[in-house]
């Protein structure tokens, strides 16, 4: 069949539905049928599923002209989604098209939620389209005979590639693709990405370094221009608006009318804890919403999540409080209203959320932004500016992630085994490992076979063995099983399942939260008040409780930092404030706080760099305001603390946010001395930064993930009770062991490199320091904490750095007694 005829089949189907294919869809169909690889830039809800599923089916029709009579077996395509929640949606639309064309093609899902029986069936006979996650794909590569299974594959589509790109899941995907390129000769690789600043790079990372693939690829942009209107919810009484905090409940009363006025509302929060709290408080204050609102986050059980998603589609709920679990995909029809609580920190994420509202053609999407503390109002103002100027962030891909590589190599060893000379070229062709040297490759092989770089007497290390044919494989069944359970790059705390004593699964929460409680204690989770009965085998048994409690479940979880693009806009926004323009409603609303800041200190202008010092009960605070975003502040605070600690024995506690950072100490700091010693200099920057990193906790924290991903720390699996107690250690201990005995270990070094590249952004730091060098430094000795300093000094997430002797520090400290 000719291409035009094939496309006609699809167009006809669209016509029957009274739809019209978008130009980007047709473009993608053609490119795919021409055998091209590529990246499709299209937002959620734009019909991207049909842009790529249609040509996969058409290709099948082309290859099997009598497709209506006879079904050809074997997997045709893999559809990767970063979130399990998205898979049902894609399955439904894909199955519909396949059925209505009478192709007999089947669509299956395989994720962590898929029952064992279904998985076993799939392995015997794969569906034609498999919808899965990067982790589940890796698990398939860890099973015997995968090469044969994937031979018939014609396409891999990586949905929401922008979400995977800036994480190690992206690296995992790169590695999986590097293998499939070899085992599936007809493979076409496609990605779908929302708009990000580095789309071209995103395409390179996805497709890898093979010249032939690169030359045979396209980037297709949907270019669906959508107008977005940002409305800030400005507190009626600014005086009572807090200076810090991230929950935002004080404006609850102003949110209610918005919910009431619209048919359906999505309320996006930044964390699961915040989501729980908001849900609880709305019901507490407005019980009339009972049964009309629901909550959606990653720790709630799957049935409830699916039910909520369905309810959003049916418009049977008035409002849903959600986290990023509803961010991506979940292609429900747009809801009427979107509310964002707290700074979204990134423009792309914000726009994606905004895009969830009301897309009637030609009409703008509206998003209400609710700042949780006063300073966030500036962010609101900056966000508006960013939307107007069409600013987009980059997603920085990971490079040389040895931990993921090691995990991948063991995965291959668990299945059919591998021969290094065959795999190495594949690895070198990925974007992530394009720079890997022969020595580094050898290091990784030694690591998995000997657990060190040279064979040692009496060593009993066992993981991957080399058989007589030179094939690297895992022989021990226990090692294989433990490895399968540990595949993945998302490292979370140990999870505990929450179940009713009578059975009935409610969800999972982190062990640290349950660990603080005793039987009989009451807590709120998934909108229910529960009493802990007992904890057994990683299952917390609970019963309903009628007691009232403020103990709402909390989750750990990283905080996001303002992107560089956002911080620049924020600085400019503040600038206009220093010039007393107050030209947006948000800045106007902040007048009181700005006045207060000016009274105690100043609002720094373009050529001014503000440093404030004051004393509180906690000690001596020195607060700096570069307005460069959290990451740069993190690096700069460590750098400065380190350089000061060379001048005198001193101990600092460091805190930072998107606006500035604080050095807190038990002794006063002479800012003049800091300035006289030129401590903001860019000389020896890299060196000093490295040393400051050694003395803080940052690299240590990074190392935690690396230790788990590379398989040095086994975290087990919540629902499977395996006797691993003797194998449990923590990464902190491991970090110390490496530091003391093997500090040239590539995984140990990787922790530092990742901190530089992904947390500190050394390049940005240098630019910031150079900028500071041209500014007037204004040192204000204040009587008390200023409005600008407040959110920083009250932050409890801190780093420390010390040049004092441990013994001397202990002598000044007191023992923490039981309460």
């Amino acid at each position, binding site marked *: 069949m000719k291409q035009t005829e094939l496309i006609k089949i699809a167009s006809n189907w669209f016509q029957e539905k009274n739809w019209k294919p978008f130009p980007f869809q047709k473009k993608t169909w053609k490119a795919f049928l021409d055998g091209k690889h590529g990246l499709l830039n299209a937002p959620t809800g734009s019909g991207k599923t049909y842009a790529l599923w249609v040509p996969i089916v058409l290709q099948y029709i082309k290859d099997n002209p009598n497709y209506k009579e006879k079904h050809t077996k074997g997997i045709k395509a893999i559809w990767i989604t970063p979130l399990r929640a998205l898979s049902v949606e894609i399955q439904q639309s894909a199955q519909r098209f396949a059925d209505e064309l009478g192709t007999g093609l089947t669509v299956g899902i395989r994720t962590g939620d898929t029952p064992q029986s279904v998985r076993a069936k799939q392995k015997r006979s794969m569906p034609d389209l498999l919808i899965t996650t990067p982790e589940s794909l890796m698990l398939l590569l860890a099973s015997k005979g995968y090469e044969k299974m994937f031979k018939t594959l014609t396409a891999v589509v990586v949905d929401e590639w922008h979400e995977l790109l800036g994480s190690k899941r992206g690296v995992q995907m790169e590695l999986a693709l590097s293998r499939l390129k070899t085992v599936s000769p007809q493979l076409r690789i496609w990605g779908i990405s929302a708009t990000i600043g580095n789309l071209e790079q995103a395409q390179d990372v996805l497709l890898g370094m093979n010249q032939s693939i690169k030359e045979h690829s396209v980037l297709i942009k949907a270019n669906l221009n959508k107008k977005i209107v940002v409305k800030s919810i400005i507190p009626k009484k600014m005086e009572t608006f807090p200076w810090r905090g991230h929950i935002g409940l004080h404006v609850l009363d102003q949110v209610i009318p918005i919910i009431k006025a619209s048919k359906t509302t999505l309320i996006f929060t930044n964390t699961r804890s915040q989501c729980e709290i908001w849900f609880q408080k709305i019901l507490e204050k407005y019980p009339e919403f009972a049964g009309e609102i629901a909550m959606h986050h990653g720790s709630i059980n799957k049935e409830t999540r699916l039910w909520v998603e369905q309810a959003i589609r049916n418009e049977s709920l008035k409002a849903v409080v959600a986290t990023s679990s509803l961010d991506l995909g979940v292609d429900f029809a747009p809801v009427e209203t979107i509310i964002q609580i707290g700074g979204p920190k990134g423009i792309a994420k914000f726009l994606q959320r905004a895009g969830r509202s009301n897309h009637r053609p030609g009409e703008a999407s509206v998003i209400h932004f609710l700042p949780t503390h006063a300073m966030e109002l500036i962010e609101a103002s900056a966000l508006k500016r960013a939307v107007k100027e069409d600013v987009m962030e980059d997603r920085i891909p990971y490079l040389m992630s040895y931990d993921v590589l090691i995990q991948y190599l063991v995965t291959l060893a668990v299945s059919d085994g591998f021969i290094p000379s065959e795999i190495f070229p594949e690895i070198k062709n990925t974007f992530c490992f394009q720079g890997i040297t022969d020595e580094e490759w050898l290091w990784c092989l030694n690591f998995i076979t000997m657990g060190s770089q040279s064979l040692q007497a*009496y060593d*009993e290390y*066992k993981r991957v063995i080399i058989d007589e044919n030179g094939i690297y494989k895992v022989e021990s069944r226990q090692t294989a099983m433990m490895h399968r359970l540990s595949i993945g790059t998302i490292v979370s705390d140990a999870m505990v399942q929450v179940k009713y004593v009578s059975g009935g699964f409610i969800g999972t929460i982190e062990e640290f939260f349950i660990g603080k409680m005793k039987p009989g204690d009451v807590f709120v989770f998934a909108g229910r008040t529960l009493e802990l009965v007992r904890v057994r085998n990683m299952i917390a048994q609970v019963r309903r409780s009628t007691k009232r409690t403020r103990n709402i479940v909390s989750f750990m979880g990283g905080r996001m930092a303002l992107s560089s693009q956002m911080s620049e806009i924020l600085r400019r926004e503040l600038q206009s404030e220093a010039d007393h323009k107050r030209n947006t409603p948000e800045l106007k609303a902040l007048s009181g706080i700005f006045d207060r800041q000016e009274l105690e200190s100043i609002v720094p202008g373009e050529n001014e760099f503000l440093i404030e010092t004051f004393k509180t009960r906690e000690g001596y605070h020195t607060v700096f305001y570069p307005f460069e975003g959290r990451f740069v502040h993190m690096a700069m605070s460590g750098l400065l603390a380190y350089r000061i600690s060379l001048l005198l024995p001193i101990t600092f506690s460091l805190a930072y946010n998107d606006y500035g950072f604080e050095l807190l100490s038990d002794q006063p700091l002479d800012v003049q001395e800091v300035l006289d010693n030129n401590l903001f200099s860019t000389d020896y920057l890299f060196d000093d930064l490295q040393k400051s990193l050694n003395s803080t906790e940052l690299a240590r924290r990074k190392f935690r993930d690396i230790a788990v991903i590379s398989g040095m720390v086994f975290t087990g699996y919540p629902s499977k009770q395996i006797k691993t107690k003797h194998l449990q250690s923590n990464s*902190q201990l491991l970090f110390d062991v490496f530091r003391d005995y093997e500090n040239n270990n590539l995984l140990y070094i990787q922790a530092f490199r990742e901190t530089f590249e992904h947390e500190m952004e050394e390049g940005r730091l240098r630019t910031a320091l150079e900028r500071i060098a041209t500014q007037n430094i204004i040192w204000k000795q204040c009587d008390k904490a200023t409005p600008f300093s407040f959110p920083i000094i009250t932050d409890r997430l801190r780093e420390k750095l010390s040049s004092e002797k441990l013994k001397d520090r*202990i002598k000044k400290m007191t023992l*923490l007694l039981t309460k």
Partner: protein
Amino acid sequence: MTHLIQIRKQDFILHASGAIFWKNQSMLLIADVHLGKVTHFRKHGAAIPLIAAYENLEKLTEVVNYFQPKTVCFLGDLFHSVLNSEWEDFTKWVEYIKSNVILISGNHDIIPQYLFEDIDVKVLEELKINNFYFTHHPTEHDTLFNFCGHIHPGVKMRGIGRQVMRLACFFKTKNQMIFPAFGNFTGKYILEPTKEDEVFVLVDDEVIAVS
């Protein structure tokens, strides 16, 4: 390096390694060494540097040389798991030192008793000498003072300027002394002392009383 205390009129020297020397009896007490742990992990594919395993025996040798005790008594969890190559090193160590060796069995000690007896290490469930009662798990006794391990105790210290530190310690209540873990590849469990408890933290080769 050391800190002398008296318990029931007997002299005990707390050592920065986590050991205690009972002067009157010339007995060195040590808890939770967890020998063989590194090798156990390596056997299961976790590549912890092997050199970390040697460190424990070196540290044991140092503290034995320092006190020259008549008896060395391990308060349980001497070995982390089943037999592995670290056992050989331990056997040589027992031969090398001149003291008698006693092991009070802990929950991790699953190596058969006869193997210990073959190398002249006496294995006991518990031990009573005069007013003192030696066990692995903390065990209250009506009249005797209990020495024990198992917990791997640590405490949290707090200072001005939001300083917080967690340190391994000897943890003494009225009738009990809990030892810190001696092994280098072991964690600690944070306890919250009451006003009556005495805490001695281990800091850079020193034992410091902090309560």
